[in-house]
């Protein structure tokens, strides 16, 4: 299988994006920082919930209910 990715172009476009972001007006950058912060908090919150949430014991599928007389 032939690799059609031009990594030089990919790296160059990444560098160009970083340069553009670095020279963006400060207010625009601070807005981005706010958005990144909200996302980071949300991700951290989700990880925290995963770690501490009360979990149900997984059901034993296939178990039959006890018969009641």
């Amino acid at each position, binding site marked *: 299988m032939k690799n059609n990715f031009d990594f030089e172009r990919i790296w160059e476009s990444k560098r160009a994006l970083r340069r553009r972001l670095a020279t963006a007006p*400060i207010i625009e950058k601070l807005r981005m920082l706010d958005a990144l*912060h909200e996302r980071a908090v949300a991700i951290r919150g989700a990880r925290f919930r995963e770690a501490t949430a009360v979990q149900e014991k997984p059901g034993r599928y296939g178990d039959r209910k006890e018969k009641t007389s």
Partner: protein
Amino acid sequence: MLNQMEHDGVIKRYAIGGAVGATFYLEPVSTLDVDVFIAFKPQQESIIVSPAPIFDYLKRFGCKMEGEYVVISGWPVQFLPASGPLLEDALDNAVEVDVEGVPARDLTAEYLAAVALQTGRAKDKASVLQFIEAEALDRTKFEEIVERHQLVDRWRDFERQFVE
């Protein structure tokens, strides 16, 4: 809020550092908190510097405390005393920046990189590298700071490891 604190004499001088401070020179990177370096007003009859006056002041404005942080406008802000020669120097040489007409004070790129170099965690090293790659540093000024604060060996190691 920070300007108001300085104006009201709660702190002597402040400057924004860390990733938020770096945003003035680099592309924004995700961070969870804001580092604010401060010089305290000298407290009479005490050699222990306490952040309590800052917390008390900010509580009056409805700011909440979260451990070591004060939450201001949704951001956890950590007030860090500019202790040690490098941080004191960095704070003395901090620059005024304009944020849509609101003045703020930020550490210069060279001091932010030097502080990161001194701190030396993985994310600090990444930050130094970012400054270099973005050509955001005045290398002469940066190397003067590195030399003045005995960081030459650390800088050489860093260069050897990441730059050369």
